[in-house]
Structures are given as C-alpha cells and as structure tokens.
C-alpha cells in the first residue's frame, strides 16, 4: 500500500497555526531568493504554483501570506506516521519527502478487504488533518504509481494494467523524463511498444534505477526485486532522576550520577546492549540545561567506569541556583551479550581491560593521542604508515616485501645535514647533524626511491637513501634529495630522516 501525503507540509503548518482561508505559501531560501515549496488551496486558486519564486507569486497574488518551510520537521512527522502506519501492516518504509509504503500482503482481510482497508486509512488520516492519496498494488512501484497518478483509492489486482499512466509514474528523475518526452514516450504503454533491447541500449550506461526506465518498468511489474528499508522504532535507553531539593554541590551530583549510571546499566542489561555514547543533561532551576557527552571506545555496561569518565567532565559545571532534574541517555548502543562474572574474587585485582585503559588515556590526553600504526601500500617512506584509532581494525592489507632494512624511528621532519662525500654520486664520508660530526665507517646504498608521480607535482625530486654507521656504532638513515644532473633544482641537499636500531 502506498500513501501519498500530497500536502504534508501545508497540512502540518495548518495543524500548528489553524486553518486559513487566505492564500498562504511556505517558502525556503535558495540561491536566487525565496522560493515557494508548498501552498494552500486558496493560493492555488489565486494562481500561485510550487517552485516559483516569491516575487513572481506576489505579482500574481499580492495578498499572499508566507511562512518559512521546515523540511526537517516534515521528515520527523513522516517518520512518526510511518511507525503509526504499522497498525495496518507488519512493516512500513519511508518514501521521502511525503510518502509512505506499508506492506499489507495478507492482512487486508482483517479490515474487510482492500477497499475497506483504504477507506479506514483515508478516514484515520483525515481525522489527523492530513490529505492523502492511497493505492494498493502487488508491487511497491505499482502502488506508488497509482497513488500519485491513478484514480482515487485504486486497488490493482495482480496482472492489472498500468499502461495509461504517464511515464512520470515510474519514479524517474527529471532529466530522464525530459529524454523520454523528447523521444515521444509519454505513457507507460508507449514504453512497451518500443523494443526492449533498444531501450536497454539507450540507457546502458545508467545504473541508478531512478535514471533507467527499464529497471523501473521491471520493478513496476515485479520482475526485479526492490528492497525497501523498513522503519523500526528504537527508543534510546533513558533514565532520569527528579530531585526533591535542587542540588548545588559536587558531592551530591556525584551521588546522583552514580545512581543514574546504576539505573542505566540495569536498563542496558535488560536489552543486552552496551553504551557507546552517553548524553548527560542537567536541568537547572533557572531553566538552563547543561549537556555533557561521552563517547566510549567499546560498548560498555560498567557503572563505575561511566561515573569515573563523567566525573572528569563535571568539573566546570556551574550549578547556579541548583540542579533539579538529571537525565542520562544512551544515544548510541551496540549489542553486548551478558557474560558470566568471574568466580575468582582475585580477578578484581587483575587490572583493567584494554578498552577501559584506552578510554582513560583518551579522556585525559585527548582522542588523537593514542593511536595505532597501519601499513599503507606506498613505497614513499612517510606514506608507508598511517595512524588509526587504537581499536580500529583497519583495512586488510598485504604486508609489503621487506627487501630493505627500515629504521626503528622516523623523525617527523627530516633534518638537514651537511655531508662530505667521496665523489658527487659516491658514498657519504662524514656528516654534521645537530652540531656534532659523525665519521661514516660503513654505508649501504643508494636505495633510490622515486616520488609517486601520481601524487606529486612534476618537479618533485627523487631520494637516494643510505644506511650508515659511524665510528661509535650509531646507525642512521639519511638521504640525498635529488640528483645533481636531474635538472630539478640546484645542488642536492642531504637530510637525516631515521634512526636505526
């Protein structure tokens, strides 16, 4: 069953502001000034159309009243309606911006047949002040087409004909509709008059269903499945405490927070969930709300852990005249199965888990301070690793072949060194780094690493890497930036980039 709430935005506005007999339009700002997005019946009578700019509409109808449109509010209402519409079927899906799809297969007899079902739906929607066009059909695409372009409250039996509907009933985007109109294909029946392979050839490079009439035609007849995303109600776990006496002191707040955490853990346990994000809201007597948010590295259900992490974020709260209501919401949860508690009492003393350790570190040091290196498929030394969040599994990569020895540590910026070498292209003999002279006793190289031409600009210079050891046995990874004869700059300079073990 498809429900088209053809005038959802204006209906919602009228429900809020009361019905108006004079012309009213909802406008939204665009790059070319305010533009009309919805109008009421009086405005339509006066000749105002959706999509025109406000100044053009005012020229036609000077007494036009305007109000700002609220698409986010409309979508929220639509989501609520989708959940409410599950009274007529086991699941429903959104069809933004103003439609609903409800699966009513096998349930029509509960309402006395499809006709009676549609009458029921129409009456209940009208009682809520919403105008709706309804249709029932074997496929979602056909129901949508009938609701938008078919007769009022149409019921399509299996194998029924849709040939007389316009091609716009195929849910195509405007560009494709324009192509079809230029080809002279105005009705769905016209499409079946054209050879199928001709259509396939014309739209062979288009994958998106909204731009390919053949896919839409097959979805209409049910030859191609059309997956829909059902709407499921998932209320976030929420606990709150109303306080008899507003609290003004930190010790009492900690007590309330501990109680809230205990309640939240109990709620989460009942649903076998663990919290990833927690929102704490504190309502003060003077009407202000203090919000604190906490994100966790792994789903958790430990009350003392939550309390401890929040405690670090409550230091700067100004209680003012007191806090009268505290609410804790788990806005992001992940499944966390119940686990058996360790029988050993000694396990309590065996330290924290890795996730708890990382949480404590990132709360104090910042989220970017704890990281994990991951290899990247690049031969350029700086790009051969990147840093991820500590528990991020990363992408599966192939370990690169280790032909050459790499240093244990890399300086964040390669440091310029002065090098004396045997010949312009020869091995380095001695170099000066951070004010001290190093005599090179052994060297291996050069290992020539060319810049990644697909990333760098054309004049980037190559690097000749040498692994050197000095008289004291200190081992370094140095490179010559460029080549004397490469024509990409002057005399090449030397840099020290890494410290070997």
């Amino acid at each position: 069953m498809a429900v088209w709430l053809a005038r959802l935005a204006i209906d919602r506005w009228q429900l809020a502001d009361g019905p108006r007999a004079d012309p009213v339009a909802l406008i939204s700002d665009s790059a070319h000034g305010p533009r009309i997005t919805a109008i009421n019946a009086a405005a339509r009578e006066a000749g105002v159309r959706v999509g025109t700019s406000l100044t053009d509409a005012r020229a036609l109808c000077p007494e036009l009243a305007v109000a700002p449109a609220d698409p986010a509010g409309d979508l929220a209402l639509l989501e609520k309606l989708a959940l409410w519409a599950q009274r007529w079927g086991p699941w429903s899906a959104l069809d933004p911006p103003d439609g609903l799809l409800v699966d009513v297969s096998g349930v029509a007899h509960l309402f006395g047949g499809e006709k009676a079902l549609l009458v029921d739906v129409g009456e209940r929607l009208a009682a809520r002040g919403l105008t709706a066009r309804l249709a029932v059909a074997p496929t979602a695409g056909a129901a949508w087409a009938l609701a938008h372009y078919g007769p009022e409250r149409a019921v399509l039996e299996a194998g029924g004909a849709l040939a007389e509907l316009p091609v716009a009933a195929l849910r195509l985007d405007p560009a494709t509709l324009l192509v079809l109109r230029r080809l002279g294909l105005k009705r769905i029946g016209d499409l079946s008059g054209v050879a199928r392979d001709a259509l396939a050839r014309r739209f062979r490079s288009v994958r998106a269903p909204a731009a390919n009439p053949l896919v839409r035609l097959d979805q209409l007849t049910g030859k191609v499945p059309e997956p829909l995303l059902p709407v499921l109600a998932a209320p976030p776990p929420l606990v709150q405490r109303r306080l008899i006496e507003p609290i003004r002191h930190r010790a009492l707040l900690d007590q309330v927070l501990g109680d809230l955490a205990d309640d939240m853990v109990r709620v989460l346990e009942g649903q076998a969930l663990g919290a990833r994000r927690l929102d704490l809201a504190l309502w003060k007597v003077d009407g202000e709300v203090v919000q604190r948010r906490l994100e966790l590295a792994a789903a958790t259900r430990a009350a003392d852990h939550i309390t401890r992490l929040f405690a670090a974020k409550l230091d700067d709260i100004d209680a003012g005249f007191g806090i009268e209501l505290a609410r804790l919401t788990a806005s992001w949860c992940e499944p966390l199965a119940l686990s058996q508690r360790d029988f050993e009492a000694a396990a309590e003393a065996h330290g924290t888990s890795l996730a708890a350790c990382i949480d404590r570190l990132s709360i104090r040091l910042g989220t970017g301070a704890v990281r994990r290196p991951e290899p990247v498929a690049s031969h350029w030394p700086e790009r051969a690793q990147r840093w991820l969040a500590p528990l991020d599994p990363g992408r599966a990569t192939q370990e690169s072949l280790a032909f050459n020895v790499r240093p244990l540590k890399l300086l964040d910026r390669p440091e310029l060194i002065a090098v004396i070498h045997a010949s312009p292209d020869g091995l380095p003999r001695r170099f000066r780094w951070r004010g001290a002279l190093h005599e090179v006793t052994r060297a291996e190289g050069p290992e020539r690493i060319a810049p990644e031409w697909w990333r760098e600009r054309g004049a980037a210079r190559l690097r000749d890497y040498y692994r050197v050891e000095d008289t004291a046995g200190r081992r370094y990874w140095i490179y010559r930036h460029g080549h004397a004869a490469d024509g990409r700059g002057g005399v090449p300079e030397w840099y020290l980039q890494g410290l070997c073990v």
Partner: protein
Amino acid sequence: MERQVSRSSPVRGGGPSAGWWRGLASGSHLACGEGPLRQPFRLPPPRIGEETKHAELFAASREASGAGLALAFALDQAGQGDQRPWLWVQDAAALRLSGRPYRPGLPPSLRHRLLHVAAKSPEDALFALEEGLRCRDLAFVIGEIAGNPKALSFTASRRLSLVAEVHGVPLWLVRLDAARDLSSARQRWEVTAAPSLAPRWNPAAPGLPAWQGTLFRARNHPPGEWILRDDGHVLTASPPHNGGVAGAAGDRSLAAG
C-alpha cells in the same frame, strides 16, 4: 665466553656456579659492588623480566639505542605465543628529539600490536605509563621521557615500580639525555651504540644491531658491562673491548686449555 639467552628455550643461570650471586644479592641490592664478589665480565645480562618488572635505560637522544635495547629485552622476555598489544609512550620532547616509531622498522612480531601514546608533558606520559601498567591486556610498556623532568621524581618512579610488580606488566623506561637521578627502578642501564659486526654478504654495510650496555645499578645482579647483540632470534651478550678473544677462556684457567 659467550653465553646465550635463547627465546625459544629460556636458559636461566645454567652451570654449577650460576646461582651464587642470587643468594648473596637477594637481601639487598647493595651487595653488588666492590671487593672479591665482583665478577662483572663473565656474566650474561640477567633476564630482567621475571624478577624485575621495572628497568631504566639511559641513552642519548642522538641514537635509537635505548628504544632498540628495550625492545630486544621485551622480545627476549615475552613468550612466542603472546599476542597481546604493547604500549609505547613518548612525551613531546622525546618525540621531537628522537622521532616517532616507524612500523616497517619494528621487529616483525611486534609490528601489528603497537599502541602509541604521544603525551604532551612528562606528567601526562607518567599517567599513561601507569594506566598502561594497570592494564591486564598489555604485554609490556615502553616509555621514553627526555631529560630530568620534575614530575619524574623518586616518588613517581616508586609508584611505577609498585604498579608494575602488582600487575605483572613489565616497564622499560628509556631516559633520553638524562642524568642519573634518584629512582627506584630495579635495574638501571646506560646504553650506547656499539659498532656492529660485518654482515656476511656485504661487509661494507652496517650489520645487525649491537649495543654497549652498562648495568650500573641492579637489585638482583652485580653491575657489569656487556656488548649486546640481537640477530632477530637471540639476544647474546659478550664482554666488551676484547672482541670475545680473551673471553673464550671462560671460567677455566688458561693453563688447562
């Protein structure tokens, strides 16, 4: 004589005379030092993992010896099957002076398990070290702190020692460019780089890593000086300055051999 500490079959203090120092030094770490007890050049470096959970390695920031030897010790002590992650904590000065860990250069069995903490101040680094030592899911913790910050006092090091021993997570703290201040670390090493042996196939190239380690203070071992070499499988120790020639005589008298 060259004694080996193998990773696959840990040999601890083998031989008839190996246990003498343990009995003597068990009561006090002051027992090592002067007099006839001192035999520093004949002993392998102790395995600091089992008895000692907290060691300090003093090294210069110009070289990666401190971190390199700490990793070698950690590898030597950790079992083959241990796949837990490990923590490397650096404060901002250490990060600036001696660079950031580079994954392709780490030992292959440790590469994928590294968790790196870049702390802004020594206080934050100490906090991260302590939290890491409290974590049961970590194999070991390596810290790098530059200089002698006020936060790293004797009390702070005592805290670290106690946490490491209670929770059984070993800590190797690398002190870059630092003076030998007061500390409760159970073993304190001075590490510098040592010339490597020539590789077999390219004698002109730098060879396998080698360090000169001076154990100047330890609770369960007399002080001494060794050349330590890590060939990727085994950490070996040999006496310094003589290239192993004089040491070949070992414990027996020269006349006998």
